[in-house]
């Protein structure tokens, strides 16, 4: 395996892993996230815009995390305090994300062009640090969800927010925290797509559907921070290798690009039809309207 291929797979893995991890934390609190692909694209636009403005890819990544976190807080707030469809709100935010992503990213494409000089340095140090960081974040989140009061509160909100409220959990505050953490990870992970993995940004990035692949990764891994590691590696490796297949095996580029999506569908079926699906059940109240009579907002 060439070193470039290894770096590419690590980049793909880290990107997918962080997005799927953030998505999982958000959904663990019972909030359905259909905004994921739009927020992915918005985050890529913000990342390249800030990275090119400040000259620092790390600042670009953190800016993405902050903007995505803001979107997550807005979604969590309206989905919790209002009796509205999570699906409709998420989908509409997906479109807003596509539109805003273009507004942020287009000036970069127009006036800067290539962004490779503003991207992360290609070095063993970068990739090893990233790999270690993603593994560490997974372990920390696993510990947070399993062993801490906050984690138990997040899970309780996802399983039965009414019971959680009766037990004294502030569902709104808990979901806002889950959204802030989750969407920050989505934003940071998405920034790696243009600033580390692909090292370019284009309007058409939104047609890549990488957010939906991360959605599938999270679904198949049962939103479990540790199970996400091998699943993200599998899909990240597949996605990256598919691009290489076009060059090495002369497979038409469009056929190669469709492989991860077909694999995603296959993975969804396998997940649902086997014991994996039963072992890694989604939160019971995922996507359900949380309405209490006479709620104060």
């Amino acid at each position, binding site marked *: 395996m060439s070193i470039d291929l290894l770096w590419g797979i690590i980049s793909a893995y880290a990107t997918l892993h962080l997005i799927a991890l953030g998505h999982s934390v958000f959904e663990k609190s019972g909030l359905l996230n259909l905004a994921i692909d739009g927020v992915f694209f918005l985050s890529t636009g913000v990342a390249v815009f800030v990275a090119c403005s400040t000259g620092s890819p790390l600042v670009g990544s953190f800016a993405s995390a902050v903007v995505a976190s803001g979107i997550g807080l807005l979604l969590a707030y309206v989905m919790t305090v209002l009796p509205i469809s999570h699906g409709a709100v998420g989908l509409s935010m997906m479109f807003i994300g596509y539109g805003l992503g273009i507004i942020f990213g287009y000036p970069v494409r127009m006036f800067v062009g290539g962004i490779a000089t503003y991207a992360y340095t290609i070095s063993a140090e970068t990739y090893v640090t990233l790999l270690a960081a993603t593994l560490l974040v997974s372990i920390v989140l696993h510990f947070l969800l399993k062993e801490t009061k906050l984690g138990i509160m997040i899970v309780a909100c996802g399983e039965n927010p009414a019971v959680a409220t009766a037990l004294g959990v502030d569902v709104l505050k808990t979901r806002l925290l889950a959204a802030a953490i989750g969407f920050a990870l989505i934003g940071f992970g998405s920034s790696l797509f243009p600033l580390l993995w692909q090292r370019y940004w284009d309007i058409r990035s939104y047609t890549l559907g990488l957010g939906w692949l991360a959605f599938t990764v999270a679904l198949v891994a049962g939103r479990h921070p540790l199970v996400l590691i091998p699943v993200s590696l599998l899909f990240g490796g597949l996605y990256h290798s598919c691009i290489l297949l076009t060059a090495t095996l002369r497979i038409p580029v469009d056929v190669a690009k469709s492989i991860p999506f077909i694999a995603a569908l296959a993975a969804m079926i396998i997940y649902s039809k086997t014991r994996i699906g039963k072992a890694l059940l989604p939160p019971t109240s995922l996507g359900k309207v949380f309405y209490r*009579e006479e*709620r104060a907002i």
Partner: protein
Amino acid sequence: MKFIILKRKKPLKGGKPIISLYSIVLGVILFSLILQATSKNFLDVLRVILMSFTSPSIVLDVLALTMLGYALLLSFKAATWNIGAEGQFFVAMIPLIYLLIVKYPEFPLPGLMVALATLLAGIMGASWAMLAGLIKAHTGVNEVPITLILNYVAYYIVNYLVYYPFRGRHVYGYTRTDELPKHYTLNVYLKLSSPTPESSPLYPVLRWAYDITYQLTYYVYWLVVAIATALVVWFILSKTTLGLRLRALGHNPDFLLASGINVKKYYVIALAASGFFVGITSAMYLLSYAKRLSYPIEAQTAGYGYLAILVAWLSLLELKYIPVMAYVVGALRNAGIALQITGLGGIEQSLLIIGTVLFSYSILSFLSEYEIKVMK
């Protein structure tokens, strides 16, 4: 001061359509404010949006979105969210291009061939949507991510076909199919002289009337098919057992289950029926407007498959409001193009306005069943 949400005891004043109206107004204001942040003048944006409602070029969008709106209504009524119209739209073009452009460009009975290809386009759209229905029915996975992922698969399959087997011979180096032979196109040209003189005070009105008439005549076949689609969808939903079951699936699937009806089968049927009409729309789009496909295909349309979601939702899933909302959404799309946001074209300009209007609708829609009371 506290705001309290209560179940509505009296119906909303002005009925449910008022929510769609508020959503459009709020969405447009949000859109304009976002554009103001990118140094576009708020009032200029509003002026362009208002002007787009009278643009004759809107006819194409209204026809496409009306048909797609009805197509999506069939599945949305069953609470089966077909977000994959975009993919079904392109996949349905495969039999059309193969039969009319690649295989039989000179078939002696063009009318018959067009009818057959259109039917096959419908079947292709239905099959693609049915795939999502089958996955949902047998695995229980939500249809939204499935239909969305299938959109990407559809993009890549059709892109491959346009790049390789369907690539034309008379395309001057462009990556696209040959043009649809003239005898297969579905257009009628208005044989009426344009209004004169330009100095007349009535000229702008006459010119507008002429342009609208020209457009309606040009797409008259499509108009007939759109009206037929509306009637067929109305008939299915209002007069058939299938329609009753689809509506019951949307309102109370437990009732269907208790009645011993195979609910899974109706998920598949809802999506297949929806996909069929998406396919017919796709055929009309190709035969009446596009005439060919270019690579990459996802850049070709205005994202009609996604815009139609907006049409269906804003119509509150009511048949009679579909054409009205198709008109509104078509106008908003045209406004997006007229605004030339940061030099972008096609679907990119529509995405933000779709999002802001849909977001407003998603938030405000709860007001049809709930009310907010202010407590001191």
